[in-house]
């Protein structure tokens, strides 16, 4: 039987990314990771109206999904995508490599689907950004095979999860 992921597990997963950012000496690397982390936190917390409030993306960013070729172009479309998707998707572990254009890495995503099941997927991702670490393109390469973990209630209601993550969002928002 698979152990259920709790709100604490989700918060700790994000705190590991926060630590990764804080341990980096290069301001660009710290900023790029901060922007990615804040963007992802806001999507998981369901704070879609704030997605582009904190200087984490350029004016016209995009998402590209290489499993189906779909491209989501622009801030409004990205916010709408998250609002309408109905999937809670959390990177529970990841490792990245940095360069001057941004960073890329591999992660394990746990996704709570609208039908009440939990799915685990390995995924490569790329955060392309400008010289201020702001997303120009977020690119997803999900593995073709998923691990289905069966029926699983969401770790918390949307409001509870958002409340649990709120202090972390504030810390990351202020990260220099």
């Amino acid at each position, binding site marked *: 039987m698979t152990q259920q992921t709790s709100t604490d597990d989700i918060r700790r997963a994000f705190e590991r990314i926060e630590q990764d950012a804080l341990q980096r000496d290069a301001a660009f690397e710290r900023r790029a990771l901060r922007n990615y982390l804040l963007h992802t936190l806001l999507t998981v917390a369901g704070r879609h109206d704030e997605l582009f409030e904190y200087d984490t993306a350029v004016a016209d960013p995009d998402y590209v999904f290489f499993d*189906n*070729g779909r491209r989501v172009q622009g801030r409004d479309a990205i916010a709408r995508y998250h609002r309408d998707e109905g999937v809670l998707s959390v990177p529970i572990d990841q490792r990245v*490599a940095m*360069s001057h254009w*941004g960073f*890329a890495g591999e992660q394990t995503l746990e996704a709570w689907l609208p039908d009440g099941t939990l799915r685990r997927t390995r995924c*490569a991702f790329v955060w392309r950004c400008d010289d201020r670490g702001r997303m120009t393109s977020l690119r997803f390469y999900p*593995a*073709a095979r998923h691990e289905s973990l069966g029926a699983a209630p969401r770790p918390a209601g949307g409001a509870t999860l958002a409340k649990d993550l709120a202090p972390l969002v504030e810390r990351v928002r202020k990260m220099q």
Partner: protein
Amino acid sequence: MDFDNSFVPATYEEMHASYLRRLAGINRMTNPHRRKIARNYYLHSLLEVAGRYPEIFDPRLTVDEPVYIFHHTGAVFDGRTEVEGFYRTMAESDGNVIYSDDHHFAVADWGFTLEQVSHFYMTPAEFTRKTGVAVEEDDRVYVEHRPTMRAWPYDMEGRMRGETLYYAQVATYSRLGPEHALSPERVKAVLAPLIDDAWSDFLANPAPGAEGGQH
């Protein structure tokens, strides 16, 4: 099928120049462990495209039992025997003739990531086998253009532990005249001097372990 008409066909000269540009970027790296990983991958990619895959298993480049994971298909080649079988199959179909561009390379203590567009050169028969689309058996060249992503792990000595690949599920295709063919034999010859230099560089620059690195 609609063919992509925007692809600028690769030449042997451009293929050669593309590797030299990558090498220039590697030589600017300051972290010895990460530079060793990058040099290892540079040599690995040259050997693979030149069809000299047995050299990839040199114990200075690769661990004894590497694991290749193709996440886009779910295929896993676990250990040297299976990985060698994969390369043998690729070489027998001339599938090693690959050109790439739009490189986004990044290296960390644990390994590297690379997003690029890979261009796989194929005969008409290979194109039909891959796509299911019947085409005339003539001397034209078919090229598959596919965004690809790699995240390969390395050990503390900078040896590759395996290949981890994620290919886009959607690709586009070009059909080129026979003058744009890249023959495996000529590619092998063009890349040979680069491989000689890459081996010399690699062996002349033993890196210390990744002190304080995170794997």
